[in-house]
């Protein structure tokens, strides 16, 4: 049960980190009320067919959860810098248990982020049947798979100085072209956006209106990105630690 012990303490120390609560939870909530609040009675926001609160509830969930997932990278880079990763390598903790703890912790943080945005959405009048909430949440969780791998990839690739700009920049650009801040329905960014996994994260918002927002294209995109980034994460981890 060595892996579960490690996971339990990994969760505990992650949730003690105040910066996480400010940036991954507080920031998206504040933005949500600032942007969606004044537009709460807009029913077809920017031609998306969604109300402004629903749009931004999912849009900012996407931002918050992406941040939560890739922030794994910052923690890994920090642990590498102080020699902790090496220290763990001379324990019986297996690579699988180590990586599982990182992914589960990232999902736990993302879960908190989503839940806090859902509550915020409900406060501004977003009302969705329970089944649709669940379906939407499952799609968001699936669309976050590539980001779980991205965090591990960057964490084992970059040092502490580079990791902040790299993850912050990546998430900001992806959020922009994926329509997190405002709907991107046409043009260059729309064309590019459909190739990135975060686009489908934002599209999960369409569950309440049309039920199945992804289609074959979305599933294929998310799965291909997952496969590519899991491969990259595995490569970076092996190269960094010399483990197989």
């Amino acid at each position, binding site marked *: *049960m*060595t892996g579960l*012990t*490690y996971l*339990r*303490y990994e969760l*505990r*120390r*992650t949730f*003690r*980190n105040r910066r996480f609560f400010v940036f991954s939870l507080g920031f998206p909530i504040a933005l949500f009320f600032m942007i969606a609040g004044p537009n709460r009675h807009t029913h077809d926001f920017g031609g998306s067919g969604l109300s402004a609160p629903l749009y931004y509830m999912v849009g900012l969930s996407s931002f918050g959860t992406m941040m939560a997932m890739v922030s794994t990278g910052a923690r890994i880079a920090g*642990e590498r810098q*102080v*020699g*902790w990763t*090496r*220290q763990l*390598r*001379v*324990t*019986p*903790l*297996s690579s699988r248990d180590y990586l599982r703890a990182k992914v589960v912790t990232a999902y736990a943080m993302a879960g908190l982020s989503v839940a806090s945005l859902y509550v915020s959405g409900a406060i501004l009048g977003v009302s969705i049947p329970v089944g649709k909430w669940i379906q939407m949440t499952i799609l968001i969780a699936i669309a976050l798979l590539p980001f779980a791998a991205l965090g591990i990839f960057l964490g084992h690739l970059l040092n502490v100085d580079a990791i902040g700009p790299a993850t912050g920049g990546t998430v900001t650009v992806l959020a922009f072209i994926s329509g997190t801040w405002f709907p991107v329905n046409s043009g260059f960014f729309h064309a590019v956006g459909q190739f990135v996994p975060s686009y489908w994260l934002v599209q999960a918002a369409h569950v309440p209106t049309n039920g199945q927002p992804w289609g074959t294209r979305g599933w294929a995109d998310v799965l291909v990105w997952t496969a590519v980034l899991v491969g990259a994460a595995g490569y970076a981890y092996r190269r960094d630690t*010399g483990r197989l």
Partner: protein
Amino acid sequence: MVGPGVVLEGLTKTWHGPGGPVAAVKGIDVSIPRGETVALLGPNGAGKSTTIDMLLGLARPDRGTVSVLGRAPGDAVAHGLVGAMLQAGALIRDLSVRELVTMFAGLYPNPLEVDDAMRLAGLDAVASQRTQKLSGGETQRVRFALALASNPELLVLDEPTVAMDVEARRGFWRAMREFASRGKTVLFATHYLDEADQNADRIVLMAQGRIVVDGPPTEVKARVGTRTIRATLPDVPAAELEQLPGVTAVTRHGASVTLVCSSSDEALRILLGRYPDARDLEVTGAGLEDAFVELTRDAA
């Protein structure tokens, strides 16, 4: 417990850095039976850390083999038989000292009681402190507690006392000897001859990637343990002082003389008896670095 502890055979490792290849370890053979405490002594760049990395499975040897308690290094580590305090390194933050030790113990199949590890490492006073609030010496003690908590058959310590003050060092070595007395095998690296002499059954002296001496501390001390006596002693010819027992060489700068000794105790006794007006006496251990240079010149 009798049986193979650590067996290194023909171990060789060259690092390839931006400055070109560096031959860190040039073919060493060491065999450590279970239950023995061995010091790996040598100056910086002797190859001690590289040897330890290979022993722990953190680095792959170019040639040669490593066997740890009859297993390959990675296998011994995976079975929780090895505890290590690596050179340098800090702790992860946002856990208390006790929580960190508890977590670490939880990774091993047969850990020490957390209280036992904390007491041995002298951490009772800081048990509830967050790890990011500790001093450098306290951090080192926590890292030692982590290595102990794993209750390993083989304890490996790479220059463990680097950030510790004198008192902390004394406590550290007392704890290490207590742990070793439980029948454990201990291998520690240091560049202090005194530490090796006082805490090891045997010293393996390395320099420039090779083993120069491998034997009991007395043997190693006889080879490298020269000391220097300095004194203010005008009007005595250097040639006369050179005749004193235990003295091998003398230099004079004005009123002060420097005596290089093979046995400083003996030389000092005679010196004081024969020259009562000798003042400002100072006895220092000769730089190990100098001794290493001598020894490797001999070996080459």
